[in-house]
C-alpha cells in the first residue's frame, strides 16, 4: 500500500493547521458563514439536516487495518460510534461538532487519511475497482495510477474552481466494477499487444440529466495519462458552463458540443500539455507502483475449506454469495456485506470496524477495500482460512450472505441526514430487505441490484439500478419514482422511468408486483431479472405495476 512521502505528510498537516485557524476565526467572528462555507467544504465538512457531516476520502477504496481502526476510534471519540460508507468510496461521520473537526482531521492525518477535495468544484476522490490488485480478471492494478491522479489533482492550482465537481473512476479489468461510465472521466486499463494503455471515457454522470460516458480515446499510451487528463480538465474548465449550475457538468459540455468537437479541443490542448510533462510523472508512478507490490501470498492448501464446505451449510451459502475469484487460485476475495436485513446500507459500527481491521491483519495481509456498493472487502484471504474468517464474521454480525441479491441495496443517506434530500432512502431499503426475506423470495429472485436515491442528484445511483428508486417531494408528501433496466457495469444502461410515482408505504408492494411478474415471466431460474427485462422490455413490468391500460394514467 502507498505510504505518504514527507511532502504528502507536510501537505496534509499544513491543511489541518490552516483549517484549525479557519474554525477559530469562524468562532470568534472574524469569518462569516459565507466566507467560511467554501473553506469547510474544501475540507469535506458539510452542514446537514441535524448536524455537521465530515466526509473522509478513502482513496481508490483502499484502507489498511490501522486506518480502519482509526476510523473506529474517531467514530467512538467524536461521533456516535458508527460511520457510513458511501458510493464514492468515502466514509461519512454524521455527528461531529464543528469545534472537534480540526482534532478529527489531525487524527485522520495520524494514519495518512484526509478529507481534502471530498467536496467543492474540484477533482474529487479518485475511485477504483474494489477488487483492484486481487481480481483474477485484471490486466493491471489500477491503484498506482489512481494514486498518481490523487497527487496530481490535490491542490492543482488550475482546477480548484471548476464549473462543477469532477469525478474520476478507474478499473484495471474489462468487467466494470467501478461504474466508470457514470463518471466525468472513466478510465479502463487496456492492453494492445505488449503495451499497456487506457481507454478514456468522458462525460458520464447521473443526477438530473443522466448520461453514459463516451469514448474520447480508445487507446491512450500509459505515459500520456496525466497530460491527457490535464488537457480534458483544462478544456472543460474553459468550455464548461458557469451560467447554470444544472448544466455545468462535463456531460452537458459533451452533450451540447458533441464528442467530435470536445475531442478536437482536448487534442489541441493536449499538444500544449504534453511537452510540459517532462517524464517526471512517470518516475513518480514507478515509485508508486513499487509501493503497490502485491503481498507475499502464502501457499496454503485449501483442503480444510473444501472439507468445511461439505458440512457447514451457512458457510456454503456465504461462500456462494460473498466470494470472488482471486488471481491466486488458493486465495479468495471476501466481500463483507454491510447490508444486514433491516440495517442501514453502508453503516458499520466502531466494533465492526475493529473486527474487520483484526481480520485483515490476521488473515488478509493487513488490507481492506470499500466498494461503491457500500460493502467492505478483504481482498486477499487464503482459502484455507475462510472457515475461520466466516466464523468470526458470524460472531460480529457481519456474515450476511446476500452479496448481489435483492437486499444488497445501495442507498444514499436521504432525508434521514442529507440537507439536499427530498425524501428518505434508508427506511425504504430497510423495508425492502426485511420484507423479501420474510416472504422467502430473496433467494429465488437471485441476482438483482436495487439502488435508491433520496433526491435527483442520484448519489444512490438509481439510474443504473436494475430497479431504481428515486425519492421526491410531491406537494409536501414523499413520493417515489421507479426506474427499470438500469445497469452500472460494462454493459451500462440508464434505467427508464416506469410511470407515476408511489407513496412511501406503496413502494414495497410495487416492487413486489414487479418481481412477482419477473418470477412468472422468466424463461427459467437462470435468467436474472435484468436479462428477463432485456428480453421482454418494460411493458409486462409496467402492467404489473399499474395494471392493464393504467400505466399512462396520472
Amino acid at each position, binding site marked *: 500500500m502507498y505510504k505518504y512521502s514527507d511532502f504528502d505528510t507536510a501537505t496534509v498537516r499544513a491543511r489541518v493547521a490552516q483549517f484549525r485557524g479557519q474554525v477559530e476565526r469562524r*468562532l470568534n467572528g472574524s469569518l462569516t458563514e459565507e466566507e467560511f462555507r467554501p473553506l469547510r467544504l474544501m475540507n469535506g465538512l458539510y452542514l446537514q439536516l441535524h448536524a455537521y457531516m465530515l466526509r473522509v476520502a478513502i482513496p481508490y477504496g483502499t484502507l489498511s487495518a490501522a486506518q480502519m481502526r482509526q476510523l473506529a476510534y474517531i467514530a467512538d471519540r467524536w461521533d456516535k460510534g458508527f460511520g457510513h460508507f458511501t458510493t464514492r468510496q468515502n466514509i461519512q461521520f454524521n455527528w461531529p461538532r464543528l469545534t472537534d473537526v480540526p482534532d478529527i482531521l489531525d487524527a485522520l492525518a495520524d494514519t495518512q487519511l484526509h478529507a481534502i477535495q471530498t467536496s467543492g468544484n474540484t477533482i474529487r476522490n479518485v475511485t477504483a475497482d474494489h477488487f483492484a490488485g486481487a481480481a483474477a480478471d485484471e490486466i493491471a492494478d489500477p491503484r498506482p495510477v489512481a494514486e498518481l491522479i490523487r497527487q496530481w489533482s490535490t491542490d492543482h492550482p488550475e482546477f480548484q474552481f471548476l464549473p462543477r465537481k469532477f469525478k474520476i473512476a478507474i478499473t484495471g479489468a474489462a468487467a466494470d466494477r467501478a461504474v466508470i461510465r457514470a463518471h466525468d472521466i472513466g478510465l479502463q486499463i487496456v492492453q494492445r499487444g505488449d503495451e499497456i494503455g487506457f481507454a478514456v471515457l468522458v462525460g458520464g454522470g447521473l443526477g438530473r440529466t443522466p448520461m453514459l460516458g463516451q469514448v474520447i480515446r480508445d487507446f491512450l499510451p500509459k505515459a500520456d495519462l496525466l497530460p491527457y487528463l490535464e488537457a480534458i480538465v483544462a478544456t472543460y474548465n474553459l468550455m464548461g458552463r458557469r451560467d447554470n449550475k444544472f448544466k455545468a457538468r462535463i456531460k452537458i459540455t459533451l452533450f451540447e458540443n458533441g464528442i467530435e468537437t470536445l475531442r478536437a479541443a482536448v487534442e489541441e490542448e493536449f499538444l500544449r500539455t504534453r511537452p510540459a510533462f517532462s517524464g517526471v510523472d512517470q518516475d513518480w508512478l514507478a515509485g508508486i507502483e513499487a509501493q503497490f507490490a502485491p503481498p507475499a501470498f502464502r501457499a496454503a492448501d485449501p483442503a480444510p475449506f473444501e472439507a468445511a464446505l461439505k458440512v457447514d451449510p451457512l458457510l456454503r451459502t456465504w461462500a456462494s454469495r460473498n466470494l470472488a475469484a482471486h488471481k491466486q487460485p488458493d486465495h479468495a476475495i471476501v466481500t463483507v456485506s454491510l447490508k444486514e436485513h433491516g440495517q442501514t446500507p453502508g453503516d458499520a459500527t466502531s466494533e465492526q470496524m475493529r473486527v474487520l481491521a483484526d481480520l485483515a491483519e490476521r488473515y488478509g495481509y493487513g488490507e481492506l477495500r470499500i466498494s461503491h456498493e457500500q460493502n467492505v472487502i478483504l481482498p486477499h484471504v487464503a482459502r484455507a482460512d475462510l472457515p475461520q474468517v466466516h466464523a468470526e464474521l458470524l460472531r460480529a454480525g457481519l456474515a450476511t450472505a446476500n452479496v448481489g441479491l435483492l437486499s444488497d441495496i445501495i442507498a444514499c443517506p436521504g432525508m434521514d441526514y442529507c440537507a439536499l434530500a427530498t425524501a428518505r432512502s434508508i427506511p425504504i431499503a430497510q423495508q425492502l430487505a426485511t420484507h423479501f426475506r420474510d416472504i422467502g423470495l430473496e433467494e429465488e429472485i437471485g441476482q438483482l441490484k436495487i439502488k435508491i436515491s433520496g433526491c435527483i442528484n442520484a448519489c444512490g445511483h438509481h439510474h443504473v439500478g436494475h430497479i431504481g428508486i428515486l425519492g421526491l417531494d410531491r406537494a409536501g408528501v414523499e413520493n417515489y419514482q421507479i426506474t427499470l433496466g438500469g445497469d452500472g457495469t460494462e454493459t451500462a444502461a440508464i434505467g427508464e422511468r416506469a410511470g407515476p410515482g408511489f407513496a412511501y408505504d406503496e413502494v414495497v408492494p410495487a416492487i413486489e408486483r414487479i418481481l412477482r411478474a419477473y418470477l412468472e415471466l422468466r424463461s427459467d431460474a437462470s435468467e436474472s431479472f435484468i436479462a428477463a427485462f432485456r428480453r421482454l422490455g418494460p411493458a409486462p413490468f409496467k402492467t404489473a405495476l399499474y395494471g392493464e391500460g393504467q400505466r399512462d394514467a396520472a
Partner: protein
Amino acid sequence: MSRKFTPKIVTANDLRAGDVVYLTASDDWSRHHHEAEFLEDEAIAELRLLRALGQGDIVVGPYLAEARQGTQGPEPVHFREAFRTRGPSNYAHGKQEATNV
C-alpha cells in the same frame, strides 16, 4: 397576485454543534420546535429572520419554515421540518435521543 402568507417559525442550525434550533419570542434559540415564536404576520416574520441572520456567531443558515399552531406550541407542517424536530429514522439519534434519556 402575491401568495397568501402562511404562519412561520425561524429555524437554523447551531454553529458549534450543528443541532437544529428555533428562534423564541424572548430572542433565545431553543432546541424545541414548540418553543419557537409563532409568526403570523409576514412583516414581523421578515424582521425576525433579519434578526436571526444577524446572529451568525450563534447559528448557521436561518430561514422561515411553515408552521401551524398546536396544543404545545408551533408544530411543523412539512415532513422535512418534522424530521428536523426528531432526528433520523434509522437510529434514535439527535433530538429523539435526548428525549429517550
